[in-house]
């Protein structure tokens, strides 16, 4: 050996043209490249790494310089030195699995004194100049506000144990002072690890440096970097000073790795002054498609945002807010859905950058659900417009409506006789039946009047499917509402009559008991009635009681019909709401990249040998699907049922009207 001292790993890979060969390089090559660096196969790169050879080869003469340099930059590490934990606590070293096969070097990372844990982020390889390492750390600190430091040394013994390397690594502790100083070592076999943590500053027994108990925790750097802990800890702003340990123990680890992205930007093909080993050191991960999309998204967003603002300005025009139109808008679910769609698109194409991961996820969810919706809508459109299906549909629609009307006619005729053997009040029964029959007749003639235009209307309505399946479904729900308008009318008439009778009966029942409703005080007061008042009241009460079954029967039948229609409409709304609110992007992420959404971590104890530090493998615990949906559910368009079952039954009994849609007035309450 040239200098008489063996520096394994020093010469290995110092010249970029040797990058491919990480295995043991022959001694001859090493001495050659060290003696005449300019004669290497690529002169420029070797010249660059030339000065860095100084440190290992001439530690003796230049030690003074190095120490001075170290003293000058040591101020950086002061802050972390001051806060050291109570000795005796188990020291946790979080070590990335990707560095387990790296060559010997320095451990760079962050020391979290509150948890007494050291988060190793990367391994700095030989050869390096201490001041350059410190400069790099200072740069990363500036960019990410994470107090990085050299935590210790990393020794990977590939060949026979070299005594000299151990001494050299110990010597490094003097240059980069850190408390505690970690000495991580991996023997030839993959299972033998040793780790020492020494403290020089506060030895409990003066003299010998104190050693801590160490626990090694391996983590997958890429997964930890990309994952997002749930529930998100309220981290301080990135601009705030580097007091980030307020988050819990493991959240601090996640936070540290996520913030020091600046450290991972260089791979080993870069010609930086310091060579690092981390998860991206074999090549920075990037995708051409993602880059292109990023570049293109800016102008596209601006363009679409302008278009959307035009549309929303047009929709806010005064003509649309006049009385009859605004009433119609509030009743049609299409308008509600279109408004919701406009809001969604505005959110997706807003030019503001998402501030936090939650907002970003929400944007992505909205985008995916809109895309899926439009894709389904287009599929529906192509199905409808192929093979003249619209014509068939239109032809089938009128007979169906006719058939429904006919069935209703039969029903009314059945009610006008003796339905289910009940004996009704004949006169009232006939009056009501004739009235409803006439109404039905009006409706049938209306349908027949419409029948020539139905195909064209359906064709145009079918076009709305290109805005999305949800819009098409809303249109369907509206069409059902329009086509069953007669049922609605019957229901309203029946309910009004029934309600009148119930109200009359209740007030006459009060009269019967000698009481009355006091409107001013909102309570029932006792009252002394005259004899003729009581007589008339009792007479009316009797009449109403005997007429009630006839009205109640009509009311019951038409309410059941109405409930059927409401149930169909409710199902459509439910489907629309499902498509609107399902967080598809998050679910896809959970399915394909489970580590992206983390509920926490889990540990696995690796094979253990007595006398060696405990080794744990930290894995990401993915969020359960139920919690994914719960956390990232998008707000729907507000078509929720307004009634509970109890209130619905109460309303039905007292004959109050029920509506499937939500009144806009209710929303503000």
């Amino acid at each position: 050996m040239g200098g008489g001292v063996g520096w394994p790993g020093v010469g290995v890979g110092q010249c970029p043209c040797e990058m491919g060969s990480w295995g043991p390089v022959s001694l001859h090559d090493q001495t050659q490249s060290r003696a005449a660096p300019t004669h290497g196969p690529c002169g420029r790169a070797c010249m660059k790494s030339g000065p860095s050879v100084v440190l290992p080869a001439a530690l003796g003469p230049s030690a003074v310089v190095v120490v001075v340099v170290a003293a000058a930059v040591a101020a950086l590490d002061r802050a972390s030195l001051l806060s050291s934990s109570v000795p005796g606590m188990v020291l946790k070293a979080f070590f990335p699995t990707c560095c387990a096969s790296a060559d010997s070097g320095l451990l760079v990372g962050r020391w979290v004194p509150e948890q007494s844990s050291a988060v190793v982020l990367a391994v700095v390889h030989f050869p390096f100049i201490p001041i350059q390492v410190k400069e790099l750390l200072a740069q990363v600190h500036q960019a990410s506000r994470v107090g990085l430091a050299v935590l210790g040394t990393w020794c990977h013994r590939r060949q026979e144990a070299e005594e000299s390397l151990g001494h050299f690594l110990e010597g490094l502790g003097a240059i980069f002072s850190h408390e505690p100083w970690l000495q991580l070592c991996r023997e030839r076999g993959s299972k033998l690890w040793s780790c020492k943590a020494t403290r020089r500053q506060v030895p409990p027994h003066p003299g010998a440096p104190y050693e801590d108990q160490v626990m090694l925790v391996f983590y997958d750097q890429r997964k930890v970097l990309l994952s997002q802990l749930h529930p998100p800890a309220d981290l301080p702003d990135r601009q705030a000073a580097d007091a980030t340990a307020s988050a819990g123990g493991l959240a601090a680890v996640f936070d540290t790795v996520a913030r020091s992205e600046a450290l991972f930007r260089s791979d080993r093909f870069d010609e930086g002054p310091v060579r690092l080993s981390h998860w991206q050191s074999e090549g920075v991960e990037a995708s051409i498609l993602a880059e292109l999309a990023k570049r293109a998204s800016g102008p596209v967003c601006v363009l679409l945002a302008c278009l959307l603002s035009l549309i929303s300005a047009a929709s806010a025009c005064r003509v649309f807010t006049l009385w009859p139109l605004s009433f119609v808008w509030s009743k049609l679910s299409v308008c509600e859905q279109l408004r919701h769609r406009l809001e969604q698109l505005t959110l997706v194409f807003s030019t503001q950058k998402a501030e936090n991961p939650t907002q970003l996820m929400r944007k992505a969810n909205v985008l995916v659900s809109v895309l899926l919706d439009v894709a389904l809508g287009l599929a529906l459109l192509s199905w409808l417009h192929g093979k003249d299906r619209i014509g068939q549909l239109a032809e089938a629609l009128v007979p169906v409506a006719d058939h429904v009307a006919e069935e209703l006619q039969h029903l009314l005729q059945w009610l006008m006789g003796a339905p289910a053997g009940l004996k009704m009040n004949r006169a009232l029964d006939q009056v009501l039946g004739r009235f409803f029959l006439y109404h039905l007749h009006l409706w049938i003639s209306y349908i027949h009047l419409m029948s020539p235009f139905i195909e064209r209307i359906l064709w145009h309505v079918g076009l709305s499917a290109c805005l999305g399946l949800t819009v098409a479904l809303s249109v369907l729900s509206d069409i059902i509402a329009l086509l069953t308008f007669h049922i609605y009318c019957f229901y309203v008439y029946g309910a009004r009559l029934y309600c009148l009778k119930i109200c009359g009966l209740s007030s006459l029942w009060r009269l019967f008991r000698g009481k009355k409703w006091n409107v001013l005080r909102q309570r029932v007061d006792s009252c002394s009635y005259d004899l003729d008042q009581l007589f008339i009241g009792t007479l009316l009460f009797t009449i109403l009681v005997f007429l009630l079954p006839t009205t109640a029967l009509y009311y019951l039948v038409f309410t059941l019909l109405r409930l059927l229609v409401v149930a169909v409409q409710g199902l459509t709304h439910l489907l629309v709401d499902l498509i609107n609110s399902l967080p598809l992007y998050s679910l896809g992420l959970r399915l394909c990249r489970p580590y992206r959404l983390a509920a926490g971590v889990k540990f696995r104890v690796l094979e253990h040998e007595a006398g060696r530090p405990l080794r744990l493998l930290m894995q990401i615990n993915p969020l359960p699907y139920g919690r994914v949906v719960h956390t990232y559910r998008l707000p729907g368009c507000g078509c929720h049922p307004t009634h509970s079952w109890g209130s619905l039954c109460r309303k039905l009994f007292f004959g109050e009207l029920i509506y499937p849609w939500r009144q806009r007035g209710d929303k503000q309450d």
Partner: protein
Amino acid sequence: MEDEPSFSDICGGRLALQRRDYSPSCREFCLSCPRLSLRSLTAVTCTVWLAAYGLFTLCENSMILSAAIFITLLGLLGYLHFVKIDQETLLIIDSLGIQMTSSYASGKECTTFIEMGKVKDVVINEAVYMQKVIYYLCILLKDPVEPNGISQVVPVFQSAKPRLDCLIEVYRSCQEILAHQKTTSPSP
């Protein structure tokens, strides 16, 4: 290092407690329930199929038989994947946390990890369960707002439900590690 004394659960079924000491600061307790026995599986399947055959002779619709087969298969899969827990593990690591893992019969694992910073204590509690009073081990979590309060009680070995003698052994080991943790951790 590894011993496997057998205990019984509250209904008298056999449980095996496996204890592994990885290091003074890391211990693992593994409670294994008996596997799904062939006898009960056969009994349930036969009952369902006989009932289906009885229905078939009554209404003579072969859909019933195929439905019975599907119901049995889906029920077995669902039972193995969502209900039957074979093994419950408690891993306690000093100054890091407590991890509970339940392994289902289908191989699915469900893990919860509680950081040591949130753990207030591990205690044995009593509860009224159906018609009897049972003991269970539980982890008390600290309330983040009020330092002395308890925000949540997390029961351990929820499906195995071991008896008190088994719980006491686990409890003692946990307390050893927690006591070590308390003496060394920086006082707030």
